[in-house]
């Protein structure tokens, strides 16, 4: 086969994939990049306003509240997810009866739709006729139930639901990392008289370092970007208590008027600028984490 035919064949095979990626993956990013300098509400003509959208962001307290909420949400989720996932992985890595079954159980939430589980958790945590509160009242554990989705506890509930769906995933990534630690390191350490907990502290943790760094990085990014379950569970409410960055962003493009929400009109130009700032915030946090964890490695 000659060269031209060869190349033609290659391009014809790669064409569908490349076209879809360019049109539906790359173009939308370029679109947002352009409109962040415009005043554009989705209809009429777009008006170039330079950096006006960005100075508006600086004064947008709703946005900054959502940034704070995002940090609380991501921090809370990580604080529960990472230690628990690591602990489960460490336990299930070594010879324990029934570990295959337990792994399967812990990983199960990851295959179920986030949105569907959010609906189910809504019926469980619902303050007035939720299953959990009815159970608490009937069994005498609480007089009037807990206002799970009220201003005080909504964020906690949202974090718990998110952790429920994520632990299994990180457990599995940790397990993959643990499997790369050679068995004889454990044998040597137990000959030296190290107990299970000492082994975990002095063998497992240090050797898992690079994997841990990667997994935590992934977890940070996913947590900062997550909003699907919050959207279904609380819509960002009550009174904006669970409004996170990307949910606020979504509402600028698709105003729904639910939750606290506050966004009534479509704001494509402003939304694009908010998207850019949000992406920069996520990127900055990842960078800070990246350098901090690298320095920690060096001092070890």
């Amino acid at each position, binding site marked *: 086969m000659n060269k031209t035919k060869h190349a033609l064949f290659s391009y014809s*095979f790669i064409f569908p994939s490349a076209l879809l990626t360019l049109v*539906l993956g790359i173009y939308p990013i370029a679109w947002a990049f352009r409109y962040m300098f415009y005043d554009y509400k989705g209809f009429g003509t777009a008006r170039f306003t330079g950096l006006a959208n960005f100075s508006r962001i600086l004064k947008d307290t709703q946005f900054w509240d959502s940034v704070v909420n995002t940090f609380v949400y991501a921090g809370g989720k990580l604080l529960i997810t990472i230690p628990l996932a690591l602990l489960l992985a460490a336990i299930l890595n070594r010879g324990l009866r029934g570990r295959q079954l337990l*792994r399967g159980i812990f990983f199960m939430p990851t295959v179920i739709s986030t949105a569907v589980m959010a609906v189910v958790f809504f019926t469980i945590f619902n303050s007035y006729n939720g299953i959990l509160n009815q159970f608490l009242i009937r069994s005498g554990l609480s007089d009037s139930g807990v206002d799970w989705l009220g201003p005080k506890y909504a964020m906690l509930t949202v974090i718990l639901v998110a952790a429920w769906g994520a632990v299994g995933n990180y457990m599995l990534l940790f397990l993959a990392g643990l499997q790369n630690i050679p068995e004889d390191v454990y044998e040597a350490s137990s000959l030296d008289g190290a107990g299970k907990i000492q082994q975990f502290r002095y063998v497992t943790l240090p050797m898992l370092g690079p994997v841990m760094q990667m997994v935590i990085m992934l977890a940070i990014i996913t947590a900062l970007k997550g909003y699907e379950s919050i959207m279904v569970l609380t819509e960002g409410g009550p009174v904006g208590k669970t409004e996170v960055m990307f949910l606020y962003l979504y509402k600028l493009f698709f105003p729904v008027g639910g939750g606290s929400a506050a966004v009534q009109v479509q704001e494509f130009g402003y939304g694009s600028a908010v998207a850019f700032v949000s992406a920069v915030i996520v990127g900055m946090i990842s960078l800070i984490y990246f350098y901090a964890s690298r320095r920690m490695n060096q001092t070890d």
Partner: protein
Amino acid sequence: MRLRTILGKIILWIFLLAVAFITVIPVVITILGSFKTNAELTAGATFLPESWHFSNYAEAWSQANFSRYTLNSLIVSLATVAGTLLVSSMAAYVVDRMDFAGKKLYIGLQSFTMFVAVGAVVLRPQFDLMVKLHLHNSLWGVILILISAHASIFFILFSFMKGIPRELDEAALIDGCSPGRTFWRIILPLLGPGLGVGALFTFRGAWNEYLLPLVFTMTKPELQTLTVGLANLKYGISAASQTHYMMAGACLSILPILVAYLFANKSFMQMTAGSLKG
């Protein structure tokens, strides 16, 4: 020492069983709840249903329109799986086996789309694009966008492709087989396991997808998928009186993926690093 290890084991198992219980209980509540009456559900007093109301499913199927939603979910998921596998296996084949200008650029493009997901913001331009192409009035818009996000499947198939010996293509070429025929007749059948894993992940993603179908069906309820229809029940005027439908609907959407998971547990567990959910 003996006593300490036994005590340690007991604590360990209490911990493991507690976590397992918390993991399983919401799903169990859903399954059992789908057979209860609404009153029984919201009273929250029983664990097992007082009597098993299989009719919940029939009613959710017809009254809450879940037959329509299930059909839509199936169309979206199956079309997405077929499209994704076709598009990414063709690309993986030429990227692995052929040399052409722009190959590096293509790989860079795919890695870029995999790691830079801007979520909410790309939904809008994607939607407007589909309006311009007149595809927003059908499920094709959703399907095409889902197929376009095939980068991770491309990389999975790419690594499987490397495992198929090149001697086979060369032999086929000598026998007068064109590259296209080699792909269909030799490579695709040998790519079976890779395609299986790819299908599994794509199906899971498409079946569970919420935001895309939500955006595309805001004005067209007859196109809603299970996830969207179910979440909408929550916003219904009589949401409180429909909890049993919600549970039955949740089961309809959870069970297929759960069954697939039980059968393909191993592949899910091994290849999960390719999917970035969590």
